């Protein structure tokens, strides 16, 4: 049997630098991150400035959702799925390069869709109700988009992962 000469570095994430979550854990983290942050944005959007016990509870709930979403996002960003999503060509094999590129393209499509949707909703709300987004709403939306942009490629790879059997 003739063994070929190695062409590039092994396509494995260094386990010491990245958190080696299972596929299901990474999927749960992705749902937790994007779900919590989306709920946080929706809650902050609906909250009014009027003081009251109900508002205080909702503010605390929004804070908890925000924290949970950010922690889940950071954990996913430190996972091996994030390594594969952001690795240079030399560190992953040719199939993983194709998957990485597809995941980034899908993430780009998703973010553009969300931006377009937000633009249309804002236009409709302005035309129909004279509502103009405040600085706080825009800042919260940008926070949501930043975390989504950071986590989406790794999340997509986790959902596409076929498991150990390949």
């Amino acid at each position, binding site marked *: *049997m*003739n*063994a*070929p000469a*190695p*062409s*590039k570095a*092994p*396509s*494995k994430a260094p386990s010491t630098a990245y958190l080696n979550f299972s596929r299901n854990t990474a999927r749960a983290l992705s749902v937790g991150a994007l779900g919590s942050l989306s709920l946080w944005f929706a809650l902050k959007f609906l909250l009014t400035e009027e003081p009251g016990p109900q508002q205080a509870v909702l503010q605390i709930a929004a804070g908890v959702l925000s924290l949970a979403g950010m922690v889940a996002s950071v954990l996913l960003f430190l996972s091996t799925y994030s390594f594969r999503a952001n690795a240079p060509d030399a560190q*992953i*094999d*040719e*199939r*993983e390069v*194709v998957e990485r590129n597809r995941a980034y393209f899908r993430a780009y499509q998703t973010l553009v869709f969300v931006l377009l949707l937000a633009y249309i909703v804002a236009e409709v709300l302005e035309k129909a109700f004279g509502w103009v987004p405040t600085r706080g709403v825009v800042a919260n939306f940008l926070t949501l988009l930043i975390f989504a942009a950071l986590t989406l490629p790794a999340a997509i790879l986790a959902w596409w992962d*076929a498991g*150990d*059997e*390949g």
Partner: protein
Amino acid sequence: MISNRIQIFRTDRGLSRKELAALVDVNPQTIGFLERGSYTPSVELALQLARVFGVSVEAVFSLEPFPPLAAQIGAPASPPKGDTP
């Protein structure tokens, strides 16, 4: 669609997916994708696989589907030329 005999050659050589993956420097998952026909390899990877198995690349990959192994084993030997009337 490219057909391949990677699984047949791999089991024939007594290699696990992980061992074969190490020999051609890919992720073991990629071997699974190749064996299922879910991924078409580059020319370089196809040549590396053929080299590991010690056969020509045409023996491992084909543009037409390979006949089932049972049919190949059970097929009667073709009669020598000139025997037919």
